[in-house]
């Protein structure tokens, strides 16, 4: 398979996560294959927030899950702390080896209520990671840690710790999910659409909380969302995905102020209040996303792209540097 390129990978020594040539395929019956993620590479530096944005079916959630090996990707490498003595190649580990690395990566999900076990108390939910690694939730030391992290996310442990998830609102459940993820002091927190299920008035509370938690616990975030404004708000670097491929990568402000890939421009023009950097008429493209079972040859966006030529059907564009820290996979970038 033609590659999407790795020109955008950085050599800095503070890279905490590097994903190389990640491929995720699922059998679809009758010897057909769903090409959910096809050769995606990216890296994240310590303390950075990487936003992954795209529409449903672009492979953003599959990518997130492949990072934590749930399930393990079809091929490709996922490296934690590459080039240091703590380096771990997740894709090469299994069993106990993988289990030992897991606390360094945590995840929060879209639906805060269904991601908490309704039959357990908040204290036990948050303490579970500690119970596995350090001791039972009744232990003095574990109790103190749980109380501290609950306070950090704005939940009063004296009132809340003995309640069950149904007694909390969606926003509060998401705070508890964040506490559960942060209590093990992970290096990387993967957030898969963390605010999409929340009311707009609560969304800002959670976004601000994530920023606070990031500085307090020294977290590195992978932030996945379909909402362009939310992604811009939280991200240092943004990756735009379409049909299992990376279209554009770069500094968040650069991507939003000078989008180069036609698909990025379409996204920005389609927002309810379109970005000022694109013309609203650019949103005029066909509705139909091609099937990931038979993705288009060459550039996968060519079937909906206003700039597509014959070259796009035969030659797959590779990520190339357009400006400093701004890469695009297109033969005809703006």
């Amino acid at each position: 398979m033609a590659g999407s390129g790795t020109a955008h990978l950085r050599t800095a020594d503070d890279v905490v996560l590097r994903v190389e040539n990640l491929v995720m395929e699922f059998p679809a019956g009758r010897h057909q294959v769903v090409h959910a993620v096809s050769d995606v590479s990216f890296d994240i530096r310590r303390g950075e927030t990487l936003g992954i944005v795209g529409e449903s079916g672009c492979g953003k959630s599959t990518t997130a899950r492949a990072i934590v090996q749930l399930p393990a990707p079809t091929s490709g490498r996922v490296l934690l702390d590459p080039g240091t003595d703590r380096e771990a190649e997740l894709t090469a580990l299994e069993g106990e080896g993988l289990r030992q690395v897991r606390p360094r990566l945590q995840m929060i999900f879209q639906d805060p209520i269904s991601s908490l076990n309704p039959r357990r108390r908040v204290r036990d939910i948050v303490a579970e990671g500690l119970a596995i690694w350090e001791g039972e939730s009744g232990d003095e030391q574990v109790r103190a840690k749980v109380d501290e992290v609950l306070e950090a996310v704005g939940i009063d442990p004296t009132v809340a710790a003995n309640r069950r998830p149904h007694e909390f609102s969606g926003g509060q459940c998401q705070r508890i999910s964040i506490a559960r993820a942060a209590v093990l002091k992970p290096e990387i927190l993967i957030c898969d659409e963390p605010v999409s299920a929340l009311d707009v008035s609560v969304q800002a509370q959670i976004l601000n909380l994530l920023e606070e938690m990031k500085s307090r616990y020294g977290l590195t975030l992978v932030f996945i969302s379909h909402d362009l404004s939310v992604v811009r708000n939280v991200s240092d670097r943004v990756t735009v995905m379409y049909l299992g491929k990376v279209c554009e990568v770069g500094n968040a402000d650069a991507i939003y102020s000078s989008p180069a890939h036609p698909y990025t421009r379409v996204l920005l023009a389609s927002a309810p209040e379109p970005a000022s950097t694109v013309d609203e008429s650019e949103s005029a493209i066909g509705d139909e996303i091609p099937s990931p079972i038979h993705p288009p040859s060459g550039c996968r966006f060519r079937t909906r792209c206003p700039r597509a030529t014959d070259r796009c059907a035969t030659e797959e564009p590779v990520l190339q540097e357009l400006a400093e820290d701004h890469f695009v996979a297109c033969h005809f970038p703006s």
Partner: protein
Amino acid sequence: MAGPLLRVQDLRVGFRTEQGKVRAVDGVSFDLEEGQTIGIVGESGSGKSVTAKALMNLLPSYAQIQGAAHFDGRDVFAMAANREKHFWGVEMTMVFQDPMTSLNPVKKVGEQIAESLRVHLKKGRREALVEAGDLLEQVGIPEPGKRLSQYPHELSGGMRQRVVIAMALACSPRLLIADEPTTALDVTVQKHILDLLDDLRRARGMAMILITHDLGVVRGRADEVMVMYAGHTMEEAPTDTLFAEMRHPYTEALLETIPRIDTPSHTRLVPIPGRPPEVIDVLEGCPFAPRCRYSVTECLTDRPGLTSHGAGHLCACHAPAGTQVGKEARAGNEAAGTTAAGLDMEQFARRVPIADLNRPGGEG
């Protein structure tokens, strides 16, 4: 024609539950002229969908509906009591949020569109199917002839919503209620559907109620906007006026709390603390007071009524934003460090890019 197409007066909808009576809609009034669009904006639980369902006669029989609604002079709730089934689906129709659940999965798309033509307008099977094909073409579905004999699962989300819109338009309604028509769809599709609804409305001279949680969706699409919170109308104004001179602190807070696509990364968002109230007990005072930056003691005891703030601009607030009273109330709260409802004012501190605080020498 005298009077508006739709006049809703003091609509109240209650549900009796074990915990008490839920006041889902608590005194909502609005007028809608022929061919106009009103946007109803609110969060979940604000009563916007219940308002629409009450008008569509879709609420369960145990819902307690009070107040009046007149469509072209006819009493909507009296028609509901008389089981006049050729009103809904003909003159007033509705499009729902999730196109998959509003389509029948085991019936062909063409039959589903033709059904209302056959039931309401007594058209023949063949004639209704031909018309269904025309409707599919009008809503921008390619190869309409082929689509007629497909099932909903064979279509994409955007196509399904177009089919639902075709169904709603079949009997040429005078009012279309669109309840979060694009919330379940991707952004690139969302814009197409909203533009389609707008074009169809213009072409047919139809009135529309556009219900959404997103202020950005109504901007530029609705003639008038009504902002709802906890079953109440907080503010109502012509769309341009609302965005230019919003008066209600809730409207202002909603707009400030949403991240904008044009602001730099790591801009701190102004939060709205707390969460929407349960609407079970009768609230004394303003329902937004516990979360409001402007609240004064009066807000906790007296429910503010809608007052006029210029042509067609109504707002229910004791200390409206952008007025002298509002400025004084907010300044007073800032000086005291807390609002009348005991809200800590410090959390509203001005927008500071977090990057400046956390990353000395970080990338600029």
